[in-house]
Each structure stands twice: as structure tokens, then as C-alpha cells.
């Protein structure tokens, strides 16, 4: 599940939830059928070939002229060749040379390629430029033909020829390994080791090389297969051991003369050679599969269960004036933990709603579910999303795509990667404009220029002709907003729209959004972890913690009189200081981290980090109305407000809930805390 790119999943190590079975000690790559086959077959061929002199039933040159070109029999398990020699004996006697020769190629290729890559990664760009140019030249040479020149010059000394092949292939190894070595070196601990004064050789041996193990193993196994094919190919051309010594390639060459009359002769040698190469490649694939288990499993999107708004007793009644009404929304990993439970909120036309909370609280999942754009393997498992009176949960992808862009549009976290790098801005804008508004090319271009002006881009003509990589982050986000406006949507979902931007640009983008709401009557759902953004732009706010809404209401009420301890804690940890107030000497922080999905406790999910947690917090309880039309999900809320205790005024002896915190390992039921 490591492929899930969204915040809730990225912060959730779902792999950690998979219990490692202590009974199975096989390395991961042997647990895949391909890997097991590859390892077993390679081990068998190598062993059988190296020990051939001791077990083969017939001598390699032992002819039985009365039994030529025989099919398999009890005497000759794999049959005989045109001179009546036993194929089984010849195949396994021939094995040692290609198997060792390919090994030499791999050793030489890695000896040079890997060493050069480590040196280039360490010495920096100047050394790298020289060695990379050399590698490029070496890679562009036709290596098989060059090998012929080697053979012409030095004769058929196969191990030397294979070593030369290793030199040529080392360029390819260098190319792959350089990338890996550079990224490993960028990791912090390598720098730390260097600062600690370890010699460069030690840094490479102790820290860099071990991290490259998987890539090295994959490449080596693949290279071994390629080298086997090349040794066999050379022998096929006659550049192998001289008759009567057998070689795989020449045995196949021999078989090709008899393909009209005795096609069987092709089979045994060809199959052994092919299986050996397949084995090397399968082993490489299995080794490479680490961490990508999810990619190979078949993912089928489960049809979302449609659960009526009345299914849960705690759900609030539908809000009549709302354009968007989310009721008791549940989102979960298919056959896995819930990511969001019992989320409800409503959005009035022309208002801005903020979803706030720490990373991993399910904000982004909630926002994406509004457009049916959850990642593979994650789906809405209950509740309702009503958009302008129409139920969106359970709609087909086709029906949803009629809503997307036209009625609901989205701008994303990372403007720099949200635009297609292969197409110009003008193409990316005019294409949806023509689709949404049914206009021609020229008119679409005018509308695009106009949209760019609307999002505050002055030199629109230049930007239209640009490609995304030529834009700055702020500019790219403006283009993304213009793109979102192409379908004249009624709702804009903005997922952390300013997080990736510079502070000054952040303010500009926020004021642009504010102007759009004012001028066009757009409704906005904005996802943010930044309470400053919320205070700046939102009319309403829903504070999310561990997959559920803990407090909601108008932004003014929630921010001025936060009722839930989590909201209070967030505000206390917020570095924005209001005008006229003293700058605090030390910022408060919230001890602990958000519990990952699947490990949510019963009762209040914040209890383990809350200063006010008590026994009663571990029992399920309903939310209580607050802030007018809002609510708060805290069983002690009235008690705390009567006592006038807040997060910042509480004694700082640490969370009182530690003793009473419920066992975190208990699976979280999806009922109980829903409202």
C-alpha cells in the first residue's frame, strides 16, 4: 500500500500493520513463485554443470553411431545428437563455461561500473561529467560486433572475451548505479557519517553500498542472463570450445542443420539455455519486487456501499440551504482500516469551509471523496455526499466525470506537478474550455487569456506559450486556478493550495481566492493544516482529528472560543501572533502523534494526547451542539468550560491521560464516536 500518495496514507505505514510471520524465514524474493523457481533452477544448473564430470552417464565424445539422432529413451534421457552422443551428458558438460563466463562479465562490469559510480557520486559534478561522457560513448558502441574484433585479435579465449564484454557493459552498470549512489548519499546519515570523520572508503563500504544492495542484486541477475545469451550466441557463431567439446550455442547451431528431419534436437539444449536465462530474469524481478507488493496484486474497486443518511442515529438532519451536504461519511481502505469515519458538514453557497487538522487526519481523503477521486484501493464505505440535492456516493465514474470540472473543480497541493509537463499552458487551458463551453479554437484561446487575467497574470501571452517547467510555483498555482475555472464550477476544492509556496506568494494566492469567492459566488472547501490560512479566508471550519470531525462551526466562533481540547492545542501551537499581543517565548507543541488508521482507540481518539483525558473519555459518546449550528465531540466539554480550563492554562505536567489512555492496539470500531 506504499503506493498511496495522499497524506493520510503517506503517514500511515500500512505495511507495518501486516504481521511478519515468524514461522517463515525465507527471504522475501523466494516467497514469490518466480523468485523461487529462478533460485532453484539456477542452483540446480550450476551444481549439475560443475559436478558433471562425476555423474554424466556417457563421455562427451562417446559416439553410438547405431543410435544417432535418437529421441529420449531409458538409455538416453534427452536423446542423442547426429553422432549418437548423449545429449544429457553434453548439455551439462557444456554448462560450466557459459555459467562461469557470464559470472566473469558480471564481476568485471560491477567492479568497474559500481566503483566508478561511487567515485563519481562522491567527487561531485566535475568527475561525474567526465565519467558520464565516457560511459555514454561506451554505451553507443555496438558491443557484439566489437566482441568479434576482440576474438579476431586474440582468438577464442572465452573468459578474456567475457571480461572485455564486462568492460563494455560496465557503462550501463555505471549509469544505473550513479543515480542510486547519488540518492543514497543525499540521505542524511551519510552526511552525518562524513561529518563524523569516517574515511571515504569506509563511508562507501559501510553506509552507501549496503543501501544499494537490492538494486545491485537486480541488475546483476539481469546482466547475468544477458551475458549467458551472449556467450551462447558467440558459441553459436563458432566462437566457442572446439569440437568434440560441447557448447550450448554450437549444439543449437548443429541442431539447426537437422531442423527439417529431427526437430527434437533443438529442444533439450534450447530449453536448458532458455530456462537458465528466464531463471536469472525471474530472480531479478522477484528481488526488485520489494516494497511493491501492491503493484502486482489485482486491485478491483469495490462498488461503494450506499448507506442512507438516516442509517446512523447520530447523523444530523439534512441542511436545506446547503449546496454541499456531507452526512456521516466513511472512507476506508478496501479490506483494511477506516481512514475517515462519521464525517458530516454542510456548505452554504458562496461560503468558504476550512478542513483543518494535522497530517494524517483524513482531510485530503475527505476532500478527494467529494469528487470521487480517491486513490486505488480506497473507497467511500458509507454515508452520503449530496451536491445540489444530488447524491454523489455510488455514482459511476462516467456520471462523476460529468460533475468534475463543470460543477466541482479542484486545485492541488503541488502546483508544479499538477500541470502536464509535456503540453503547453495554452493547450492545457483551451482543451477543457472547448470541451466545457463548446467553442472553437480561437475563441477558446481568448477565454484562456481572459482567465489568466482574472487570476492576476499580467503577461498572459507569454505564460500561454510556456511549458509548466518554465513557470514559478506561484505562477503555476495561478494557472491551476485558471484551469479549475475553465468549467465555471460552483464549488472549488483547494487541497493545501499554498503549502508548497513562498510566504509572500501564499498571501497573494489567498487574496486571489477571496476575490474569486466575492466576484463569482463560488463555494470553496479548503484543506489546510495552517490555522492562519483558515483565519484569513474561511467562513466555516471543521477541525478533523484521526479521521473524524472533532469540532465545527463558524470560523470566528471556533477560533475565538475553541471548545475541543484539540482545537485549543492547535491554536496554542500556531505561530501566528495577533496584532498587539506579546510574542510567546516558547511555542506550545502537542505531545505525541496522530494514531494511524486501524489503531484508533475506542471513545475519544485524542485522549492519549489530551491534557484533560479521564476514564470516561475511553467510552463512546455523542457530539454536542456548539457554536450555533456547529458541534463539538468531547465528553468533558461542558465540565471544562464551567471550570474555565483551557489548554494553555492547564498544568504542564504532561498529558494526564497517560494512565487512563486506552490500549492503542485495540481495533477502532467505526461506530461509537460518530455523531
Amino acid at each position, binding site marked *: 500500500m506504499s503506493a498511496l500518495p495522499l497524506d493520510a496514507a503517506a503517514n500511515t505505514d500500512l505495511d507495518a500493520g501486516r504481521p511478519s510471520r515468524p514461522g517463515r524465514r525465507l527471504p522475501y524474493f523466494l516467497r514469490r513463485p518466480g523468485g523461487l523457481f529462478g533460485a532453484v533452477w539456477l542452483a540446480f544448473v550450476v551444481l549439475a554443470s560443475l559436478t558433471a564430470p562425476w555423474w554424466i552417464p556417457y563421455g562427451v565424445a562417446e559416439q553410438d553411431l547405431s543410435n544417432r539422432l535418437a529421441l529420449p529413451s531409458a538409455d538416453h534421457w534427452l536423446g542423442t545428437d547426429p553422432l549418437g552422443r548423449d545429449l544429457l551428458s553434453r548439455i551439462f558438460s557444456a554448462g560450466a563455461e557459459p555459467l562461469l563466463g557470464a559470472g566473469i562479465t558480471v564481476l568485471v562490469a560491477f567492479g568497474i561500473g559500481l566503483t566508478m559510480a561511487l567515485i563519481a557520486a562522491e567527487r561531485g559534478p566535475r568527475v561525474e561529467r567526465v565519467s558520464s561522457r565516457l560511459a555514454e*560513448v561506451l*554505451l553507443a558502441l555496438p558491443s557484439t560486433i566489437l566482441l568479434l574484433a576482440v576474438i579476431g585479435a586474440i582468438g577464442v579465449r572465452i573468459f578474456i572475451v567475457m571480461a572485455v564484454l564486462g568492460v563494455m557493459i560496465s557503462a550501463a552498470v555505471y549509469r544505473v548505479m550513479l543515480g542510486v549512489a547519488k540518492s543514497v548519499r543525499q540521505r542524511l546519515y551519510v552526511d552525518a557519517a562524513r561529518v563524523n570523520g569516517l574515511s571515504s572508503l569506509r563511508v562507501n563500504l559501510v553506509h552507501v553500498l549496503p543501501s544499494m544492495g537490492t538494486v545491485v542484486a537486480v541488475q546483476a541477475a539481469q546482466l547475468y542472463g544477458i551475458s549467458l*545469451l551472449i556467450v551462447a550466441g558467440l558459441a553459436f557463431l563458432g566462437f566457442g570450445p572446439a569440437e568434440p567439446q560441447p557448447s550450448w550455442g554450437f549444439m*543449437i547451431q548443429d541442431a539447426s542443420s537437422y*531442423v527439417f528431419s529431427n526437430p527434437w534436437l533443438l529442444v533439450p539444449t*534450447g530449453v536448458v539455455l532458455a530456462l537458465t536465462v528466464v531463471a536469472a530474469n525471474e530472480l531479478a524481478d522477484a528481488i526488485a519486487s520489494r516494497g511493491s507488493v501492491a503493484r502486482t496484486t489485482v486491485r478491483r474497486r469495490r462498488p461503494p456501499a450506499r448507506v442512507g443518511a438516516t442509517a446512523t442515529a447520530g447523523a444530523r438532519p439534512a441542511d436545506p440551504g446547503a449546496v454541499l451536504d456531507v452526512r456521516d461519511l466513511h472512507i476506508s481502505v478496501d479490506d483494511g482500516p477506516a481512514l475517515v469515519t462519521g464525517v458530516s458538514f454542510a456548505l452554504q453557497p458562496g461560503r468558504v469551509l476550512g478542513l483543518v487538522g494535522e497530517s494524517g487526519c483524513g482531510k485530503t481523503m475527505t476532500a478527494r471523496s467529494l469528487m470521487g477521486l480517491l486513490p486505488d484501493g480506497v473507497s467511500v464505505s458509507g454515508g452520503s455526499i449530496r451536491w445540489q440535492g444530488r447524491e454523489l456516493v455510488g455514482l459511476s465514474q462516467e456520471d462523476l466525470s460529468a460533475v468534475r470540472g463543470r460543477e466541482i473543480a479542484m486545485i492541488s497541493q503541488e502546483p508544479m506537478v499538477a500541470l502536464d509537463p509535456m*503540453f503547453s499552458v495554452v493547450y492545457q487551458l483551451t482543451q477543457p474550455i472547448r470541451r466545457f463551453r463548446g467553442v472553437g479554437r480561437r475563441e477558446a484561446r481568448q477565454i484562456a487569456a481572459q482567465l489568466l487575467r482574472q487570476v492576476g497574470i499580467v503577461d498572459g501571452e507569454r505564460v500561454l506559450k510556456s511549458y509548466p*517547467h518554465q513557470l514559478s510555483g506561484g505562477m503555476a498555482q495561478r494557472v491551476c486556478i485558471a484551469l479549475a475555472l475553465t468549467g465555471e464550477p460552483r464549488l472549488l476544492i483547494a487541497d493545501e493550495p499554498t503549502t508548497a509556496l513562498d510566504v509572500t506568494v501564499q498571501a497573494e494566492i489567498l487574496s486571489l481566492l477571496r476575490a474569486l469567492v466575492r466576484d463569482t459566488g463560488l463555494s470553496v472547501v479548503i484543506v489546510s493544516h495552517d490555522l492562519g490560512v483558515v483565519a484569513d479566508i474561511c467562513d466555516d471550519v471543521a477541525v478533523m482529528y484521526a479521521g473524524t470531525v472533532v469540532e465545527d462551526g463558524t470560523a470566528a466562533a471556533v477560533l475565538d472560543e475553541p471548545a475541543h481540547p484539540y482545537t485549543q492545542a492547535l491554536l496554542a501551537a500556531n505561530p501566528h501572533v495577533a496584532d498587539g499581543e506579546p510574542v510567546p517565548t516558547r511555542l506550545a507543541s502537542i505531545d505525541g502523534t496522530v494514531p494511524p488508521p486501524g489503531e484508533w482507540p475506542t471513545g475519544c481518539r485524542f485522549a492519549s494526547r489530551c491534557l484533560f483525558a479521564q476514564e470516561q473519555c475511553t467510552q463512546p459518546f455523542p457530539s454536542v451542539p456548539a457554536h450555533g449550528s456547529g458541534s463539538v465531540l468531547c465528553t468533558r466539554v461542558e465540565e471544562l468550560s464551567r471550570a474555565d480550563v483551557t489548554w494553555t492554562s492547564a498544568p504542564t505536567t504532561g498529558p494526564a491521560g497517560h494512565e487512563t489512555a486506552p490500549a492503542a492496539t485495540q481495533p477502532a470500531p467505526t461506530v461509537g464516536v460518530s455523531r
Partner: protein
Amino acid sequence: MLAYVARRLAMAVGTVLAAVLISFLLVHATDTSPGAVRLGPGGTPERIAAENEALGWNDPLYVQFFDYLGGFLQGDLGTSLVNGGSIAADLADRVPVTAFIALFATILSGIIGVALGVTAAVRGGRVGQLITTGAGVALSLPVFWVGIILVYLLAIQAGLLPATGYVAFAADPAGWFRSLTLPVLALTIGGAAIIARTANAGMREALAQEHIRTLRAMGTPEWRVRYVHALRFASVPVVSVLGIQFIALFGGSVIIENLFALPGLGQAGQAAAASSDFPALVGVVVVATVVVVVINLLLDLVVAVLDPKVRTA
């Protein structure tokens, strides 16, 4: 763009020079000599020494190298030690044979490989599994073995195509095409498998990109998301692998030419290696490198057209 083209051109020239230098040094590392090769087993040490002197074998290496380079720039690759014929003239007849085989095989690998790889990435599930597993096996099969099996199936059993031999294009265009079909197919099986894997990985990566999500969020029709945007993104790695593939197929054609008795560059290389015909060996390496470099330059231009980051740099 200009800087990019200039850099690629410089690389191309450097690669050809490297090929000349490496093959030149290689044949000088031999423990025999051109005189011995030319005179054969009947040559006495005195006659061999005289022959070597006449061939300039005893001149300082750099003199020989620049002599060769000067000749190469004028299209003169020397004469064969075995039959005394002009190497350049011989290879000029052979290059088209090998180049056509490699080019057809590359194009066919590209078409079949992209179709299979994209299908595997888009369909996923059992079809995707079947394609990726099949490709894994196909790229592991020895090309000469595949070639013989194709001969057995298509020429011997089905009788559709000639088993071996070459028909000149000028003599019989249809026959020429038929004579190249089996060799091209044999090379395509492994080539298409490699392209299919690249296309599959590229397409999966493309479909996981953030900008694809933006397109979906805009309600873009799925065919356009896949076959316009994701495919365009995946095309860059596919085209660069096609370039590497062409080099591999060009080299691989040595074996295929031997199997199908085609008068190509590879056959000349094999003969020259077997007879230690040094000038012919150097000639084959240099000519093969020139062809590979030219094709790669063309592919670099294709990449530049496809990738705006390269084009606008």
C-alpha cells in the same frame, strides 16, 4: 535546442573516434600479424616480415592511426587481407541489409511492444499479468533458438516463407521482403518484450502522476487521459529504450545473419573475426558504429520533439 543538438553531434563524433581507436588498438594487441594472415600457413618468417613492412605494420602506432583516420575520412577503409578487395565497397553493399533488418525489427518491436505494454498497464489484472510474464520469458529466449523455431514453424511446417537465403531488392522486391520477414520476426520477439516492459512501467508511472489526477479532476474523458496525456509522458523513456534496442538489434543481427545466410555486416564481421582479417574487422566496427550513431542522433531529435524540457532548454 541548438546547444542540445551541438552536444549530441559532438558526442556522435566522439563515439565514432572512440570506435576507430578501440578497434585499432585491439587489432594491434594481437600476437599474430597481418603478414602472417595474408600469406597463410605457407608464409616463411622472412616473407611475413617483408609483407608486414610493406603493409606499414612496423610504423609507429600513431602514424598508422592517423593514416587510417585520413583514409577513413575519405571513405577508404583499406583492403582485405584475405581477398584483397576494397573493404569500403564490400561493406557498402552489406550495410543496407543489416540496417533494414535492425530498423524493421526496431519499428515492429516499438509498435507491438507499446501496444502490449500499454494494454498491460491500462487493463491490469489477469491480462496485465499475462503480458508481463510473457514478456519476461520472451526477452530471455536466445534469438538464434527463436529463429530456428520460427523456421521450423513458418517455413517448414506452414511453408509460408523461405527458410533462409537473401533476395536482392532490385531483383525481386516481394522476394526481398519475404526473405527478411523471418529474421525480423526472430529479432522482434525479444525486442518487443523489452519495449513492452518499458512501456508498461512508463505508463504505470505516467498514470500515477499528479497531473493525471488534475486531468481526471477536470472530468477529462478517460481515453484522452490515457492515450493523449499518459502515453505522451511514457513515450520519452520508450523512445530512449528504442535507441538502445536498435544498437542491441544491430549487434544481434550478427547471429541472425549467420542463421539465415544474409549477406550483412554481421556476416562480414564473423568472417573477418574467424580469419583475423584485421582491416576488415576495424572496418566493420567503424561502419557499424557510424550507423548506430546516426540512428541515435535521429532518435535524440525525436526525443527533443516529444519532450518540451529538452526542446526549450
